[in-house]
């Protein structure tokens, strides 16, 4: 039971992020919402690799009596998470630079006023 707390956290965080993206009209607020969803997915990936009583998958200074690889947490999801964090920052940087350019052209960050393209 106690180990499923991270999963509930993930679900709540995704909901909060999605709320920000659907109901908040400020473009930077939407970027913040996207970052929250991104964090939630990262947390989900790392939680998947967790093993009860496992240690970090680092071979140097390994405590004695640890079986390899059963005694370690899974390293693959951590590698995936690292990639995902870096991609997330790239997306966020691009999104914020686009918001700055939108502000220069439209004079607002309200998504209701940023819709010359429609129909």
């Amino acid at each position, binding site marked *: 039971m106690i180990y499923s707390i991270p999963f509930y956290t993930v679900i709540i965080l995704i909901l909060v992020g999605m709320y920000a993206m659907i109901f908040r009209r400020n473009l*930077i607020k939407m970027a*913040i919402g996207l970052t*929250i969803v991104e964090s939630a997915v990262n947390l989900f990936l790392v939680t998947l690799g967790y093993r009860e009583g496992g240690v970090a998958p680092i071979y140097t200074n390994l405590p004695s009596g640890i079986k390899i690889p059963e005694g370690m947490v899974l390293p693959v999801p951590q590698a995936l*998470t690292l990639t995902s*964090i870096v991609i997330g920052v790239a997306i966020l940087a691009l999104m914020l*630079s686009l*918001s*700055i350019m939108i502000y220069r052209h439209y004079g*607002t960050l309200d998504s209701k006023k940023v819709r010359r393209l429609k129909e």
Partner: protein
Amino acid sequence: MFEIALILLSAFMIASSIIAVWFKDLLASTIALAVMSLILSLYFYMLHAPDVAIAEAGVGACITTALLVIAIKNTERMEEVEE
């Protein structure tokens, strides 16, 4: 001990994410987001992923905050109030 830490971290993380979405002041919500990222990196450390924790603290908390602050400086600080 571990369980209490998990519950506390989860609670703080959800609270700071809600605050980040709630605030009308974008700078304040950026700070809340940074707090969330820091707690997330602690979370990663608790789950035995120290290298990911370092990356999250460095990239997620610092660079993200810096980017957001630059973006807010170049646009406007307050979210527009809905009519």
